[in-house]
């Protein structure tokens, strides 16, 4: 084939697709290199399937251009498209008990005229594909006799028999158990590693996407909001922003791939949120504030946090909860500007919680600023574990804390007491 040289196997330029008046894709730009395995992620209704259908030519963009192998998809005939792009749809379930071998042969359709029958080449390709999907011994069985996992592999096989350079998969793992999910994605991964197949898969499971894909493209409300290698793209902040989910980010110790432990929604549908409880400001650092921030958020309080240094895990937690924060650059003392922002947050707060954070010269201003709240709003001091050194400024931190206590700050033993204290009428909490 005489294909114009385009380094991209697939290119979307400013693609906008509408269903009626509702835009399903908005000005999406995307270039996929040959041999890449791209995972499309995003919440339901974010445009993943729409993007795949636009690439298949099922939908015509109102603006922009979809190009496959350097040629606009709308300039290709249905047969030409079928020789360029194959599709593994969501939940294809054959109704007739077709022999698996014949079913895979269906994929050879675009290579025949109406009067041709299958050639020896076609049969060889079908045999090879059956081998690739690990179903060579089931070739003669009816497709309805296969298990769910095997059937999904058969659908992949039918698509592979089209021998296209581009493979699109729409939630290929959605009905599979965990073992078959891994199996199927490993097979797709293996196919792309030869460099001849480019795969784009809509995947709901971000952990699977991070584990197998070279690259994750995140869609939200029809826009491409993040794009890059999994370790760059997956973050707690992204989860909170795009999915509205609070999650912990970990790394697979073996592969380094990021994985997520989802916890709960950012804004649980509780009355408290709607009425706008809080905000409660949490002072902390070094991971000390995280549990209190999460607990407060879960209990329906809006939270703010700071001042914190970039890279502090407390900051990631706060951001994932959608909290306003005061942020300093990494490993630097809290500067005047950040201190000013901290003062604003403290002023806006209905209560302040001081998490048990280690105090050094750089973050001493945090305690210092809390003094300004005394007598004006409740200040809760979380009791520190005994015997653990936390004052790294030669007693100045202890002195400040003592001053807070004398000024009316109340000591709480942990999360439960904190929530109880906040729930009390304001006059008593500020005693």
């Amino acid at each position, binding site marked *: 084939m005489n294909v114009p040289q385009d380094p991209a196997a697939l290119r979307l330029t400013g693609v906008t697709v509408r269903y009626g008046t509702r835009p399903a894709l908005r000005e999406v730009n995307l270039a996929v290199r040959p041999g890449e395995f791209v995972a499309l992620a995003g919440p339901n209704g974010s445009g993943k399937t729409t993007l795949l259908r636009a690439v298949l030519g099922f939908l015509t963009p109102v603006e922009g251009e979809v190009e496959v192998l350097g040629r606009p998809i709308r300039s290709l005939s*249905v047969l030409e498209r079928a020789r360029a792009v194959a*599709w593994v749809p969501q939940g294809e379930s054959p109704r007739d*008990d077709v022999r698996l071998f014949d079913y895979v042969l269906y994929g050879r359709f675009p290579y025949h005229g109406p009067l041709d029958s299958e050639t020896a080449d076609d049969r060889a390709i079908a045999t090879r594909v059956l081998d690739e999907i690990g179903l060579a011994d089931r070739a003669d069985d009816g497709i309805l006799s296969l298990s769910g996992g095997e059937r999904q592999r058969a659908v992949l096989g039918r698509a592979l028999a089209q021998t296209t350079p581009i493979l699109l998969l729409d939630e290929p793992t959605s009905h599979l158990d965990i073992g078959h999910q891994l199996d199927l994605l490993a097979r797709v991964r293996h196919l792309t590693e030869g460099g001849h197949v480019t795969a784009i898969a809509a995947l709901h499971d971000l952990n699977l996407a991070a584990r197998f894909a070279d690259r994750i493209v995140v869609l939200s409300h029809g826009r491409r909001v993040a794009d890059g290698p999994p370790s760059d793209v997956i973050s707690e902040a992204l989860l909170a922003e795009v999915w509205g989910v609070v999650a912990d980010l970990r790394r697979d110790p073996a592969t380094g791939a990021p994985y997520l432990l989802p916890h709960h929604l950012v804004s649980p549908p509780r009355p408290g949120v709607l009425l706008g409880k809080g905000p409660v400001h949490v002072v902390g650092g070094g991971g000390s504030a995280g549990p209190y921030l999460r607990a407060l958020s879960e209990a329906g309080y809006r939270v703010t946090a700071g001042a914190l240094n970039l890279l502090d895990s407390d900051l990631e937690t706060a951001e994932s909860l959608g909290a306003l924060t005061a942020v300093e650059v990494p490993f630097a003392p809290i500067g005047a500007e950040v201190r000013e922002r901290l003062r604003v947050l403290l002023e806006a707060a209905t209560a302040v919680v001081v998490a048990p954070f280690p105090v050094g010269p750089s973050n001493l201003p945090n305690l210092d600023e809390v003094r300004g709240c005394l007598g004006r709003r409740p200040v809760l001091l979380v009791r520190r574990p005994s015997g653990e050194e936390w004052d790294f400024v030669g007693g100045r931190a202890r002195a400040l804390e003592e001053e807070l206590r004398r000024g009316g700050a109340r000591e709480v033993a942990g999360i439960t007491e904190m929530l109880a204290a906040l729930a009390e009428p304001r006059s008593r909490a500020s005693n």
Partner: protein
Amino acid sequence: MAALEPTGAVPALPLRTRRRRLAALGLLAVTLGLVAFSTLLGSVTVPPQVVYQVVLHQLSGGALFPEQCAGTTVSPRLCGAYVVIVWQIYIPEILLALIVGAALGLSGGALQGIFRNPLADPFLLGISSGGTIGAAIIYVYRYQEANADLLLPLFAFVGSVGTGLLILGIARGRFGSVETLLLTGVAVANFLSAVLSLILLYNPTGSEQVTFWLLGGLGLATWQVDGIACGAVLVLGTLLALHGRELNLIQLGQDVAQSAGVDSRRVRLRVILLASLTTAVAVAFTGIIGFVGLVSPHIVRRIWGTDYRVVLPGAAAVGALFLLAARDANYLLFPGSLLPIGIFTAFAGVPFFLYLLYRQRGASTMGST
């Protein structure tokens, strides 16, 4: 076929394949046998020896049995009448049964495939009501008496095709939706039924003929009719039967088919048009013969599987056999009179169809949904 298989290719299931080939040979043998048997049946009983001598005489162009009633006791005058009865009535009737049966079976199979619906039949798109209006005009206004034989078929054909095109035209733009198309068909058919009732109410003279028409019959059969029907059905049917691979893929869904290279919308329009034209040809000459188009594809799928490259020609073959059997049943049960053939297709077809449905655990030959 076996020579084409590369080494390492999967060997075909010998038992199933052999059984299917045997069934195909059986179908062929039964059809040929039934054709031979059918020549003995008709409105008049002709001695078997005379029948076969007449047929062989005509087929050989007069070389065999120059005296067509030689070796029998039949008088020369009676012999002349027998020749006309066998060659001008029985044989055209038999051939028309085969042609129309094939047309209805094929059309039913194609429409069941394109709509992915086991209840689809050739009259799905208002073909029957349109054709009936066309025929009723001839019957009621007695044009038939004044004009040539082909006027009735022409009116019926125009009525059928016109209605089909009207429905496709109305549904145009919403062609992606099967339901819209089918409901449009039902709506238009009901409208035309009302028109027909109105015509008959004010012109009761033609209503008996219309009733006969609505049950179908082979009464119009002549060599000329057979020639036209055969030519049309052969051309349309061949074009239709070439869509087996497309129909196979369409069973997986419009979108899957499209992604695999089938231009779903265009194929759907083409198959519906071809199937409707094929049906219209049948309707033009024989009226509305029910059940052949519905039951034949199901029989084929039960025996030969769901591959539409087999289902389409198979449904044509089974349909031909079925309609011929219905004609014979008529003459066996009611010797001497040709009744509406739809009565017999229903009598034979309904019990057999129910048996097929309930014999296996699935209630349908078109998948489990």
